[in-house]
């Protein structure tokens, strides 16, 4: 049981790293959104592994809510992307650097 838990968390941490790296390395807002998706998939794996060890139906309820949150967050991010595209004609986040100090 605990070995299976450790495997799940190991891969969850790996996914978390890949997503974080993607968000940090990319300049493209769409790719950063993909990185965010990968990160949240990692957290989902971690949650279900924890739930299997303790309280599975609670974990399932939590995951369902989290999926709903995730889709709204991604949709809102895409709305932001569309807005950025319309206003600047690009989705390069480093071009957005008028504010400094």
């Amino acid at each position: 049981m605990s070995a299976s838990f450790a495997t799940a968390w190991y891969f969850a941490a790996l996914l978390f790293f890949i997503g974080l790296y993607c968000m940090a390395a990319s300049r493209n807002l769409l790719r950063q959104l993909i990185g965010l998706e990968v990160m949240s998939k990692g957290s989902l794996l971690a949650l279900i592994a924890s739930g299997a060890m303790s309280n599975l139906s609670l974990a399932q309820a939590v995951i369902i809510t989290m999926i709903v949150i995730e889709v709204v967050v991604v949709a809102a991010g895409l709305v932001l992307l569309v807005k950025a595209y319309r206003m600047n004609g690009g989705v390069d986040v480093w071009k957005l650097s008028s504010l400094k100090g």
Partner: protein
Amino acid sequence: MIEYREFLYIAVTLCALAAVMSKNMLTSAISLAAMSVGVALVLFDFNAPWAAVFELSVCAGLITVLFISAVSLLRREEAFFAEDRTRFRLLPIFTLIVAIGGWIAGWPFFEALADYARFGARGQSLGSMLWETRRMDLLGQISILAAGVLVINSVFAARKAGK
């Protein structure tokens, strides 16, 4: 001997790598969908069928549709794809380093963490869990959906006014 679940984990990780590294955004979106399918299979395997169904329909379905429509919207732009690729080519190496490091340091940590597992109230069905214990979460879901609808509408309304 790799078991079914480990095979799924490896597939999910490979899909994640593909989603992050592929040059074409459409491939990325499809790899992301494949990854979601993999996660849904893991959820089935963990005996969480309802969560798996949600994952399959919402993440593998809806989010992929959203991504693909965004990609097709932005496709015309040439500069969009011009990105420094070397950082992404380095990703498998970094991932390998993290994987080996995680094997040495992370694994024992997670195994130690598993010892703190506390068996909560089992036997409550998902329905009673959602509708009785987690009633407030449903309210939260309603408000996040309301927020999402308003955010999306505000942008489309602005476009109408602009035209």
